[in-house]
Structures are given as structure tokens and as C-alpha cells.
């Protein structure tokens, strides 16, 4: 009986201690945290360096990058090279996965420290970088169309023919004790 209420009182003591404790929140719009070096903000493109290799467009899981490619002799060498005349990044779809940054061979697409993307219209979030605006609503990549394998290997009967690969186990999880 004397213990009844002790737990509650203990908890209330803790909350009272916190009542006079230090606050941990920050006033966001006035106070801005220093972003770490690797922080991934909104994407931006350095169009001078872009070689229109379309790698970023291909890897993007969200199909948020659309590039319109032409051939143009940009550096005056006389040989027309691929040139990105239109380049749009649809920030309403981007999920900041950084795959395009990693895949870019010339490091022309990179993250900024901007992260406050807001607009009244989703189309406003499609940021154009090229000379000519690209319609962001058109899907840059049609879905992967795989030709069905005509089951060439499995000709014999009802047995599912899945030849087991003779690859040795990469590691033996069961031998955990030995490690």
C-alpha cells in the first residue's frame, strides 16, 4: 500500500525536472542548422559540363530527369556531339537518392544545400535547366519491356528446369561459431 503512487510521483519528478531543463528545439526559419557535408539537397545541373550521356536519366528510379538530346558542335571542333538542349528535373518526384550524382561521368549534376522546395503547383517544381523547356509530364523512359524467354532450356516435361549454379557459398553463415 505505501508503494501505491510512488511510480507516478517518480515520473512526475522527472517531468518536473525537465520543466526547468534546457530546451532542445530550435526556431527553424530563424535558426538554420549547419548541413553536413554529405547532405543531399535539391539537384542542380551544370549544363556547361553535361555531355548528354543520359546515364542519370536511365538510372533514376523515379523517372524525374528528362533530357532532350540533340547533336551539336558545341566546342567548335567540327564534330557534332550529343548535346542536352533540354534538361528538366522534376522535384516533385525526386527522392534524393543520389543515384544520378554517382553515375554522372563528368560530375555535372550534384546536390545543393537547398531543401525547401515548395510551390503551389506541382508543375512549378519541374526545374528547367536547358535552353528549351521540356515537358515534364512525358515519361522519359518507357517501362522495361522484356521479351519472354521462350523457355528454351526447359523442354523436358513438367520438371521446372532451373539448373543450379555451382557457385560455392559466398560465406557460410552456419559457421558462425568458428568466427
Amino acid at each position, binding site marked *: 500500500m505505501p508503494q501505491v503512487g510512488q511510480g507516478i510521483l517518480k*515520473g512526475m519528478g522527472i517531468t518536473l525536472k525537465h520543466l526547468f531543463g534546457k530546451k532542445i528545439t530550435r526556431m527553424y526559419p530563424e535558426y538554420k542548422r549547419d*548541413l553536413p557535408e*554529405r547532405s543531399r539537397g535539391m539537384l542542380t545541373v551544370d549544363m556547361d559540363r553535361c555531355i548528354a550521356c543520359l546515364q542519370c536519366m536511365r538510372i533514376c*528510379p523515379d523517372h524525374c530527369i528528362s533530357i532532350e538530346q540533340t547533336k551539336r558542335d558545341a566546342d567548335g571542333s567540327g564534330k557534332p556531339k550529343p548535346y542536352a538542349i533540354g534538361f528538366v528535373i522534376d522535384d516533385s518526384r525526386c527522392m534524393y537518392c543520389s543515384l544520378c550524382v554517382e553515375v554522372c561521368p563528368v560530375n555535372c549534376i550534384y546536390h545543393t544545400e537547398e531543401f525547401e522546395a515548395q510551390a503551389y503547383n506541382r508543375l512549378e517544381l519541374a526545374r528547367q535547366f536547358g535552353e528549351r523547356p521540356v515537358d515534364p509530364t512525358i515519361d522519359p523512359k518507357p517501362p522495361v519491356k522484356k521479351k519472354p524467354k521462350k523457355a528454351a532450356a526447359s523442354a523436358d516435361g513438367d520438371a521446372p528446369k532451373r539448373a543450379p549454379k555451382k557457385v560455392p557459398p*559466398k560465406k557460410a553463415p552456419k559457421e*558462425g561459431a568458428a568466427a
Partner: protein
Amino acid sequence: MLSEERRVEESALTQPASGRLANPDVRDEFGLETLDMNMGPQHPAMHGLLRLILELDGETVVRCDPVMGYLHRCQEKIAENRMYPAVIPLTDRLDYFANMHNEHGYVLAVEDVLGVEVPPRAEYIRVLMCELMRLASHIPSVGFLMLELGAFTPILYSFRERERIQSIFEAVTGARMMFHYIRIGGVKADLPEDIPQKIWDYVETLEANFQRDFVDLIQGNEIFISRTRGVGKMTQEKALEMGVTGPALRCTGVDFDIRRDYPYSIYPELEFDVITDTAGDVEASYRVRIAECLQSIRLIKQCLEKMPEGEVLGDTGRRIRPAEGEGFGRVESPRGEYAVHVVSDGTDTPYRVHYRDPSFCNMQLLQEVVPGHYLPDIMPIMGLVDPVSGGWDK
């Protein structure tokens, strides 16, 4: 859109729908009318978008039927149309309280089918991140449990810790929640130089505050005890039969933890205990989670101490195009066994990806455990199961 119509056999569908679903014997015993109630999908305390169709007798639940799919994104179908590396950021969206584990599971599966070696330093970093993630998941889930019981303060204390862990993640990976850090063959980048010290300091402060903010504030509270002790009680047999894993299983006394029983990564080299409890109720699951947090702290310290030098990203070639085969990755996510099943057909997109999410499997408990409890007990039971909307809806 669909090329062929599919019809299932009538016999499979015409069976009585009640079956083993609800407890048939608790209905029809009442003299009074029962009350149908829809809880969710928009409900302030529901873990995401879950709809519970409840049948109430007064305040007692006689039937509980969860309806899912309000957050379904068909992750498995999307993954079939993405290249292998491009699926990793999508797995982040599955169980958004255990992103590292999602990535880890998928990456383990792809590495399994690909047969690549992972540098030891990368393994250590993965385990370090996963254990931090477990802290960042278990502590808020304790807070959520208290929120569901009506106490609002613990969740903010727990989110204080989660935010600090997320700051560490941001410094390491660049994002606070959707990391995309663990890659096929290693991790994206090495830890920044000051981060090991920061993690160590953080873990020390967490240890110092842990007892006060998450044990003393909650565990002895008489109201907490009366609300959770004996609530959601389940036996080992039932939990095993329902396919429950994680703390919800361990709180019944079943000693099962993939990290120890079917080890992956470098867990065999680390010292840790598997926490079990015997009660099998909400309070026991709370105790298990609290104790697992301490084990995670232990693991983090070991990782920091033992971390070797070296590369963090193995060589996987320019295009990841595994041979035909099936890969499996299983990790012990904070909610239980998270397994990924990858079928490769030799192209650079997976043929089939299947996620076995612990939230989905554990949530089957609801329709078994909830009937017979009072309406306010649903929420603590949700806290026991601790599902995450992104997890069960894929």
C-alpha cells in the same frame, strides 16, 4: 490492360469466411446489440493507414478485422522494373522506421545471388548503422506505446533521441530518413572522420539518460502497469503459429533472433544477448524493447572498437547483372525477421522481388489477440505489435 482473365476455383472461395478468423464463440453470447465501428484509416493513434473494422459490445471488442492497402505502392512490381541498384532507395520506403535494415536485407539478397565479397570494414559500418537504426526505432516505439496509452511526453523524449541519431545518419549518409547508404558490395562511402567519436559520445549520453527518461518515467508508473500487464497476452504456441517474429515473439519467451541463430554480416564476431521475457503481454514487449536498446548500445560500442581499416565498397562491376538464380537476405529488423527474396533472370532488373515484412506478419496477431479486450486495449496491443504502415503495405 490485363491480358488474361483469371478465375480461381469456386471451392476455395465459397468456404465460410469466419473460419479461424474471429472467435466465433464470443459472438451471439450477448444479449445486447453489438456496435460496428470503423477505426481508421485516418485515425490519430493508428500506426499509419490501417483500418480496423471492429464489432463492439459496449467497450468490449468481439471482432477485429484489419483492412490494409491504403498505403500500398506495389513495391514489388516497381522493383521488377528498376535496375538492381535503383531498387535500394525504394526499399527505404518500406518500413520507414528501419530503413537501414530494409536496405541491408535487399542488398544481402542481391549479394547472395551475385556472389560478391563485402569488405570487412563495410560489414562493420553496416552493422553499426543497423544497430543505430534499431535504437532509432525501438526508442520511438516505446514512446508510441505511451502515446497510445495517453501520455504525450515520452514520445517527445524518444523523438529527441531519434533526432540525434538521425543527425548522425545525416552526417554519414546525407539524408535523415531515406538513406540509400548500403550498396551492393559495401556501403556508399566511408564514415566521416569525426563520426566514430560522435557516435561514441552520443551513445554515452544516451546511456546516461536512458534510465531516467525511458525506464523510470514509464516502468514503475502504476497506471502504465495496470494498462499493460496482462493485456494482449499470448502464448508461445500462438505466437509461433502466427509467424510472429521480433520483440513480439521474444516477449513470449521464444528465444529466436536471426542475428544469433542464422547470422549474417559480422554478428558472429560480436557479443550480445538475445532478450526474452516470459509474460507475453504489452508490458513484456516494452521490457524487451528497452533491454534490446541496451544491447544495441553494446553492439555499437563493439563495432566502433573493432572496426578495421580498408575499403568500404567491393567491386561489383559496372553493371550489376547477376546470373540466373535466387537470392535471399534476412535481417533482424527492429520488428522481426525482414527477408528479401530476389529472383534473377540474368538481366539487369530483378525478375521478382519479394519482401517479407515483419509488420505484415506480426499484424495478423491483431485479429487473434484483440477480440475479448476492451476498446482502449487495442492501442497498447498495437504498441506490442508495433507495425509500420510502409512495412505492411509494401
